Structure formats: C-alpha cells, structure tokens
C-alpha cells in the first residue's frame, strides 16, 4: 500500500504543507520527512521492481520503479535533504524551505521514474522548484538570475520534450532504459539531459544562478539538478563515446574558470561543473567499473559539495561577504567551519581516507583498464587541478591568506551540526567504503587502498599543493568576473538586436548610447509593433478586419479556381 | 398632437379595426394567409399608432412597459411550453400529434398555441422597440 507511493511524494507533500504550519511543527517536519523517505525506500526494497502502472494520456506509465541506481541516488538525495534542512532550519523562510522540498522531492521522483513521461513530469517540477529556490535569494540579482535560470531550464525541457515525443513516436515505447544516441530524437534527449548536467556551452547557468541563492539555498541547489542529470545519463546513455569528450571539456572548463574566479561560491559552482565532468567521463567510458565509479562519485560528491557549500554558506551567513578579496583569516574565529570546509576540500580533491578518493579512483582506474591513455592522463591532471582550485584555493583564500580583520563566530548550532554530520560522512565513506560499494549498481572488485595507489595519489596532490604555493603570486584575487557563454545572451544578443533595431530607426538615434539605452531601444521597437498602441495590437477599425476577411476568402477562392 | 383632431378621430376609429384584423390574421393563420408573426406586427402597429397619436405617456398608461416586456417572455414561454407539453405527453419536442386524441386536432391545437405565442412575443417586441426609441428622444 504505502510502499507503492512514489517516494518523492513524501517531500513534495511536505512542500505543500510547510507554508501552512507553525514554526515548531515545521522544524520537526523538515527533519522527519527525509528520514521517512529513506525509511520508505529501504523498507520497500530493491526487489519491488516496478511497483505499479497507471494509464495516463493513453500510455501505461509506471511512476515507481525500484532499481539499484535509483536507490543509490534516492538515498543520497534523502540524506542531502536532511542535511540541507538541518542547515537551513533557522535561516530559511517557509517559502524557501517549501521550494527546496519540492525540488528535492521531484529529484527523487526522477530517479524512481520507470518511464519517460513520469521522468519528464518530475524533471519539469524540479525546474520549477529549483527556480523558486533561486528566487528566494530575494535580491534583485537573484530574481534576474532566477529568470535566466528558469528560461534555460524551460528551454532544456523543450529540447528534451521534442526528443522524448519523437522517440516515443518512433518506437512506441515509453520505457526508460538504455538508449543509443543514433537518431535525432535520441540526440535531443541526450542534449536535454546534458543541459541539466551543466555541459558546455549551456553551463553558465550554474555559476550564474546558484551563487545568487541564499546560503542554505545553494546547498540544496548543488545537489539535485546536475546529479539527476548524471542519473539519467547513467541509465539512458552509458558508453556513449561523445560523453567522454563532453566530460573532459567540462572538467577543464570548471578548473580554469574556478581558478579565475573571485567569488567563493562561484568557485564552488564552477567546481560542480568540473566534478560532474568526471561523472560524465565515467558514463562515457561505460564499463561496469566506470559506471560504478560515476554513481559512487555522484554519491560522494553530493555530500562533500554540500559540505563545502555549507562551509561557504556559514561564512556568507556570518559575514555577509562572498568575495575572496574581502575574506581571509577566518580560521581563528570560525574553527569548526574551517575544519569542516577543509575536510570537504580534501574529499573533493580525492585525498586518501576521504570519500572522493574511493570514488574518483574508480573512474580513473576504469580509463586505465580500457587503455585510454590520453583520457587517463587528462583525468590525472584534472585530479591535480581539482586540488588546486577547490582543495586549496577555497579554504586558503577564505580561511587563511591575509587577515581580513573579520572575527565572526561559528554559525548557529544547526549549521554546525549539519557540517559536522556531512564531514563525518565524508570521512566514514573514505575509511569504510564497503557500505557505499554495496549500494552500487554492479558488484565491485575494486580495492582503493593499495600502497602504490595511495603513494601515487599523495605525490600528485602534494606536489599540486607545492605548485599552488609557488605560483601564488600569479593567483592574486582581482575584482573581476570571467566572460562565459552567457555573455552571448546577456550581452551580445541584446546588443545585436539593438544594433539592428537602431539601424531601422532614424539616424538621429544612431549615436552610441549606453547598453541600457540600446536594450531599451529594442524593447521600444518591439513595443512599437506589439505594444498596447502598436500596429499589431491597436484597436483597428472594423474595416481592417473586413479587409482580412476578403483576403482569406480570396485566398480560398483563388486556390480553388486555379 | 393634441390639436390635430382629425388624426385623433380617425385613429380612434381604426385602432379597434386594426386589432380585430390582427386577431383574424392570428387565428385564421392555419387556414389562410397569415400567422403569428404578421398578426403580432399588426397588433403591435395598433398600439404604436395609438402611441403616435396620443403620445408616449398615454401609451405607457395603456401598456405599461413592465407588462409589455413580461409579455415578450410569456409568448416565448407559451411557444416553448407547448413543446414541453408534447414531450410530457410522450412525443418529441413540438410534436403536436399527441395534444389531442385525434392527430388532426392535435396538429390544429398545437399550431394555434404556438402561433399565439409567436404573436404575443412579436407584438410585445414591436411595442418595446417603439417605446425604447421614442423614449430615447427625450
């Protein structure tokens, strides 16, 4: 009975209830519901398979399908929802908490989807939920970034939907299973998935929108959208060669941009792209071990990236500052935040005894096993690069470097508790990887802790550290942003339209104005035709309609008689 | 029009005739030329003539607008009601055969009532239109 319930619905129901209950009940609710979800998932168990089907739009949809990969992702999503809720317990407004739960619930919905329609339904709800989370950053910048975020995800939804419908039309099947990227419907589906994964060129929404969310909001955002994309790629397109190259590009794109970045949360946002790149490469390699590695890395990544963002969020929450150039020396007054942040940083860098070590190694090893030397070398270089941009750069510039003079205390107890919880998880998984291995879709025969591997990794990371400190003068923080593809739709497209529009207008307006004026002029010229008094919207005399009546009538008649 | 004696006298003489003729057209409609629509127009014309000659005020006294509008409704109700009665008696809407034991009589009765409904509505509508337009001028 209850086991047939789509597990995501628990959190979604919570999202509906949250705005209507008092603060005390709300706090209990947000902590209890993720636990309840976890209990439902594991109480039902993997043997349940496809629990039920129902007719919807003439198809037999199966909203609840238990499968190993789904279980793994749902487990970490529930843990994340719990940790995030604990972190957000006091700071988040009811609307933000509700949005976050809608978001988390629909992400869990996606990973249990047994068919493409259910998947798409939850996919779109996830877009709405996450947009609401961004908006709850409640600044003007958050509102604008949220709109861009929403439009990109709606666009991704469109690409995905055309692909899905084309696929369903061609095959007659709605089952969500392994697909071959061999015809344009499948290419579109792949593209739709990759947009959510943050693949270049549509990746800039991550550093654009996520850092505008509230401190707690970004903790939630980092976990679900990109990782559900990893999930669907894992299930739908394992072994698609193109993904190796996409993934490698994402990895180095993330490193380079993170190195250039000044905003601590944008550094971490770029590092999301980087880390998802590792998973995408693993999916592209497509062997059993590579897929295991991708899944394990997603699991580990959600936790340590959540931890890093909690640490960054605590700093932002306590100081109100987010730029590296404004921060520094915080380890003295925020020891717990700093320690947890460092543990997260070590985990993301795949330091031995942390969760990243056991998961990333699997991906690297699978590349080696397949004798992909270039891929392996690049992945190894990237591991060093991760340590550079996230492993050292983030903690160094936030907690050490110069003394900014700021002496904020550690954040409130709930934030500390959430950080300690996640830090402990990072270490536990790193030391005892067996429980995580047991969750993986395929049996694991991988032993991470061999002397050679540990030594090799230590050499790599420690010498990267050396490189960091030696090259420190080259990495002086500057008050800058880096141009990215979003420049095209934030700057170039409006300017081009404005340029054309200006040419269409009288020459007197041709003087170069500020960009704002240019954008204004597009809107003006659009409004000229479409606005309330515009040509296409004006209350025209009836004669105009009669004219059109005659035109259409004539069209019919002329075509008929010719 | 108070001083125009001749129109007043002639109107007084002809109005009863017009109304009588209207009733003739109405009830003879199923045997000869005529019917509810024509009868209604003629009947209404009688009142309109009265209104033209004796003024709107007097017409309003003879035929209070509220009652006239009500008659629009009554005519429609009569028309529709006959149809509903035939339904109640077990036939289709507006199937008059069932209105009497003999089919022929039923047809006769049905058409008579329906035409009466039409006549009433048309007459009332004509009067309403006249009163509305005449009233607008002031």
């Amino acid at each position, binding site marked *: 009975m209850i086991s047939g319930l789509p597990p995501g619905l628990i959190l979604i129901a919570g999202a509906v209830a949250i705005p209507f209950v008092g603060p005390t009940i709300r706090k209990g609710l947000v902590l209890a519901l993720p636990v309840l979800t976890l209990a439902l998932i594991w109480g039902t168990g993997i043997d349940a398979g496809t629990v039920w089907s129902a007719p919807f739009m003439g198809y037999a949809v199966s909203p609840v399908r238990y499968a190993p990969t789904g279980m793994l992702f749902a487990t970490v999503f529930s843990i994340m929802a719990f940790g995030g809720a604990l972190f957000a317990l006091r700071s988040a407004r009811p609307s933000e908490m509700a949005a976050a739960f809608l978001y988390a619930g629909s992400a869990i919905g996606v990973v249990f989807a047994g068919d493409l329609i259910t998947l798409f339904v939850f996919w779109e709800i996830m877009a709405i939920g996450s947009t609401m989370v961004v908006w709850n950053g409640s600044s003007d910048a958050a509102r604008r970034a949220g709109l861009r975020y929403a439009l990109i995800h709606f666009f991704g939804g469109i690409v995905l*939907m*055309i692909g899905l419908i084309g696929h*369903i039309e061609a095959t007659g099947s709605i089952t969500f299973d392994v697909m071959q990227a061999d015809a344009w419907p499948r290419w579109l589906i792949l593209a739709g998935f990759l947009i959510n994964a943050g693949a270049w060129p549509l990746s800039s929404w991550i550093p654009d929108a996520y850092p505008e969310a509230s401190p707690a909001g970004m903790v939630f955002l980092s976990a679900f959208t990109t990782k559900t994309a990893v999930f669907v790629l894992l299930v739908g397109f394992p072994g698609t060669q193109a993904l190796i190259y996409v993934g490698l590009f994402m990895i180095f794109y993330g490193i380079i941009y993170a190195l250039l970045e000044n905003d601590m949360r944008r550094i971490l946002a770029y590092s999301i792209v980087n880390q998802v790149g590792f998973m995408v490469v693993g999916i592209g390699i497509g062997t059993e071990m590579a897929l295991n590695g991708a899944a394990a890395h997603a699991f580990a990544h959600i936790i340590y990236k959540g931890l890093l963002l909690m640490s960054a969020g605590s700093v932002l929450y306590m100081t109100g500052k987010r730029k590296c150039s404004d921060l520094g020396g915080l380890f003295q007054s925020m020891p717990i935040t700093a320690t947890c942040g460092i543990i997260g940083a070590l985990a993301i860098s795949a330091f031995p005894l942390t969760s990243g070590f056991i998961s990333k190694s699997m991906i690297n090893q699978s590349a080696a096993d397949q004798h992909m030397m270039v891929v392996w070398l690049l992945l190894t270089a990237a591991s060093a690069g991760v340590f550079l941009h996230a492993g050292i750069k983030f903690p160094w510039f936030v907690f050490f470097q110069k003394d900014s003079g700021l002496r904020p205390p550690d954040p409130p107890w709930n934030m500390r508790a959430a950080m300690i919880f996640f830090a402990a998880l990072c270490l536990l998984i790193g030391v005892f990887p067996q429980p995580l291995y047991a969750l993986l879709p395929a049996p694991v025969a991988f032993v991470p802790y061999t002397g050679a591997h540990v030594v090799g990794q230590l050499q790599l990371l420690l010498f990267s550290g050396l490189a960091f400190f030696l090259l420190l003068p080259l990495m002086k923080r500057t008050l800058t942003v880096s141009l990215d593809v979003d420049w095209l739709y934030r700057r170039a497209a409006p300017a081009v339209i404005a340029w054309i529009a200006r040419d269409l207008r009288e020459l007197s307006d041709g003087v170069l104005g500020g960009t704002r004026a240019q954008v204004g002029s597009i809107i003006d010229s659009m409004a000229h035709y479409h606005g309330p008094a515009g040509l296409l919207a004006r209350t025209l005399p009836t004669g105009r309609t*009669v004219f*059109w009546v005659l035109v259409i009538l004539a069209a*019919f008649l002329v075509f008929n*008689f010719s | 029009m108070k001083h125009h004696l001749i129109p007043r006298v002639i109107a007084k003489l002809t109005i009863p005739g017009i109304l009588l003729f209207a009733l003739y057209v109405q009830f003879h409609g199923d045997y000869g030329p005529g019917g509810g629509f024509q009868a209604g127009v003629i009947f209404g014309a009688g009142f309109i003539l009265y209104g033209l000659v004796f003024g709107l005020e007097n017409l309003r006294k003879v035929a209070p607008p509220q009652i006239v509008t009500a008659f629009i409704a009554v005519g429609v109700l009569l028309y529709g009601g006959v149809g509903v009665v035939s339904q109640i008696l077990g036939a*289709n809407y507006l199937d008059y055969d069932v209105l009497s034991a003999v089919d022929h009589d039923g047809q006769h009765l049905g058409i008579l009532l329906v035409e009466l409904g039409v006549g009433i509505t048309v007459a009332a509508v004509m009067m309403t239109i006249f009163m509305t337009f005449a009233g607008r001028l002031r």
Partner: protein
Amino acid sequence: MIAQFPALQVVIPLLGAPLCIILRRGALPWLIALLVSWAALAMAATLLSQVADGEIISYALGGWLAPLGIEYRIDTLNAFMLLLVAGTSSAVLPFAYKSVAKEIPQDRHYLFYSGFLLMLTGLLGMAITGDAFNVFVFIEISSLSSYAMIAMGRDRRALSAAFTYLVMGTVGATFFLIGVGLIYAVTGTLNMADLAERLPPLYQSRTVLAAFAFISVGILLKLALFPLHLWLPNAYTYAPSVVTAFLAATATKVAIYLLLRFGYTVFGAEFVFNIVPASEVLLTLALAGVIIASFVAIFQSDVKRLLAYSSVAQIGYIILGISYANVTGLTASIVHIFNHAVTKGALFLVMGCVAYAAGACRLESFAGLGKRMPLTMAAFVIAGLSLIGVPLTAGFISKWYLVLGAMEKGWWPVAAVILATSLLAAVYVWRVVEIAYFRDAPADAPPLSDPPLALLVPTWVLTGACVYFGIETSLSLGFAEQAAIQLMGGG
C-alpha cells in the same frame, strides 16, 4: 424522459431566459439561471454517457424526420461540447452572484441573467443541432445576446467593443449564411448528415468550393483566428468579468466545433484537405497567430487584455492541430478546446476576483497582490502554469498531443514552434507573477484582501480542474480521442 434530453438541453435554457424576465425580483433570476445551467449540465453529462460507446443519438424535432425536419444529432463531439458549455456556465454562475452585483446596476440584473441564458441557449444549440440553417439561427441567438452582455461592462469602452464585435460578428454570420445558401442551392438539403451524402459527387462544383470558402471564412471570423481576431481583445477586456470568463471558455470553442463539423462531417476530410488547400491556409494562419499573438500578449499593460491575446494564440494551437489532418492532431485540438476552456475560465475568474477587490486589472494594480490576495494569486499561478503547459496541468496534455501530432507528420519545426511559444507564454505569465510577488504595493494603496468565498470557490474549482485534468485524462482525452476517430471515420 432521457429520450427527450436532446430537446430539453436547449429548451430549458431557452425557457429560463423569459422566466428571468417575469420573475425579476431580487436574487431570483440568478437562482433560475443557476438551476437551469446545472440542469443543462446534468443533461449534457447524461447525453455524453449515452454516446460514450460510439452510439449516435438522433432526435427529430416536432416528429418530422430528417432530412425534412430539423434533426438534433449527437455524437461524441457534440456531447463533449455540450458538456463543456454547460459545465463552464455552471462553474461561472455561482461566481456571478457577487461579481455581477458589484459590476452591474441592480435594475439590470434580470436582463443580465436572461441574456446569459440566451447565450447559453445559442451555444448549446450550435453544438447540438444537425441542421445547417438551424446552426445559423443559434449563432444569431448567441451572438446577439453576447453583444448585449459585453455592452453591460462597466467601462464605457465596452459599448464600442460590443459594437465592433457586432459588426464583425454579423459579417461572419452572413458569410456563413451565404455559404449555407449556396450548398442548399446545389443539394436541396440542409441536414448535415444528408449533405455529407450528397456533396461528394459535387466536389468539383464551383458552387460547393465557393460555399466552403464562405462558410469557413465566416466561422474563422467567429472563432477569432489571427488575423480575424481583432474583435476579441476589446470584447474580452471590457465585458463584465463573468461574461469574459464564459465567452473565453466557450464562444470561440463552439465556433471551432462548427469548423470541425463542417470540415469533417459536411464537406468531408477528403474535400477539405485534398481538394481545397485548407491545411496550408490553416497552418499558415495558425502559426502566425501563435507567434504574433504571444508576442503581443507580452507587451500588454492590462492583464485581461494580455489574457485575451493569449487566447488568440491558444486558438492558433487548436487550429494548428486541425491542420495536421491526422487523428492525433485532431485529438490534440479537441482536448485543447477543453483544456484551454478550463484554464482560461480559471484565469478570467481570477481577473474577476481582482476586479472585485481592486477594481481594475491593469498590470500595476497587481503590485503586491501575492501577499495581499494570496489565494487569488495562487490560483493565477496554477492556472498560469497550465497555460504554459507545465506537466501535471491540463495544458501539458494538449501540448504533448500537439507536438506528437506534428511529429507524426514529420513537421518537427512546427513542434519546435509550439514549444518555443510556450516559452513566450512563460514570459507573459511571469510578467504578472513578477509584479504580484516581487513588487511591493505602493505605500498609499488601499488595503486589499482575498474576495469572499462566493468568488473564491468557483475560481478554485476551475483552478483545481486545471490540475485534475492534467492528471486524470480519461474524460478529456478519452472523449477527445473518440470524437477525433469518429470525425476522421467520416462519422
């Protein structure tokens, strides 16, 4: 008794209208209208359940059998339209009580409800009759009463809007009549089923071609297909709230029904799509309408007007589905007729709530409404999501089928346009949401709160329907599919 429902379906609203005039005191007219409408809904539901298995009901008025007499002929599509029209009126009439009391002078209420019932009669009649000339009669009944209803709007511009609509509506109805006259001239019959049998041998006749041109242009004007939509925005903007909600949900939809009925049943799909270039004409106009009207909607400063332009765009979607000339496209059109009626009905009732509380529906008067009228704006958001076509709302079902139909034809650029314009819908819905939720009300704004339950409940019933029909599709989609198959099968 049930055998008489086809006639009663039209007769009861028809008799209700004069009854409102006679019993004009107090709330009686409203009560009559409400009861009549609910009765009509019950009958429509019964009829739909009777034709659900594909049966066709034929009812001879006055006992005169077709093709001599007037025949009411009910297949799935008719019954579905009846349900839609009666259902919408039953949902908006409870709303009318308070809304009309606020927007229309007390001494005209009885006229309002009487006119409303006539409008209902006309729309039901158009949907039920199987006689081409009878259609014209009902078009006139519904049109004349809707002109009067629009003219009752508070704003003085309502008068000019009604007048424009009157002129254009009359042009449309006249074109329709000319066309019916032409086919009568060549076939000697007005019964649709009979026409369907007699027309095929005459397909090359110029009279028939001309008749088709006149009838379709006449209907396209009534259904407000771009660029023949110019009467619609003003009419919807200035009419009383209830009238807008009712007309937006039903009037253009019944006109679309006529297009389907004449296209598929009377002239036949073979004629319409193989002999006449209807598919190309409809496709072109529909795409132009969807794109341009969506853009125009973005730039409106009056939310009612914005929604009116969105209606023009949505009508474009419906016509798009028809232009595919396949079962999926037709299903999409019919289901979108239904889903859009529910969605727009809900949105215009929200406008009614805003107009009731704030007095106007201008964009700037929405500032801060998210906090001040939370329930009303929540309904707007949900119905707005349905307008965009977000999953789990009614709009999604239509969008899915529209795209699926395009894919079956291999017209994937059309599919891309459909989905891209839903981004435009997202933008214009967003404009309202942004102002309602992200802009604070001016400091000197009078206090506002959600309207009374009498307004909120009907609004939320329709809003709930947007979600309900997005999840439980057996009613909307099931009947739409059956109707589409019947139409394509030449039924």
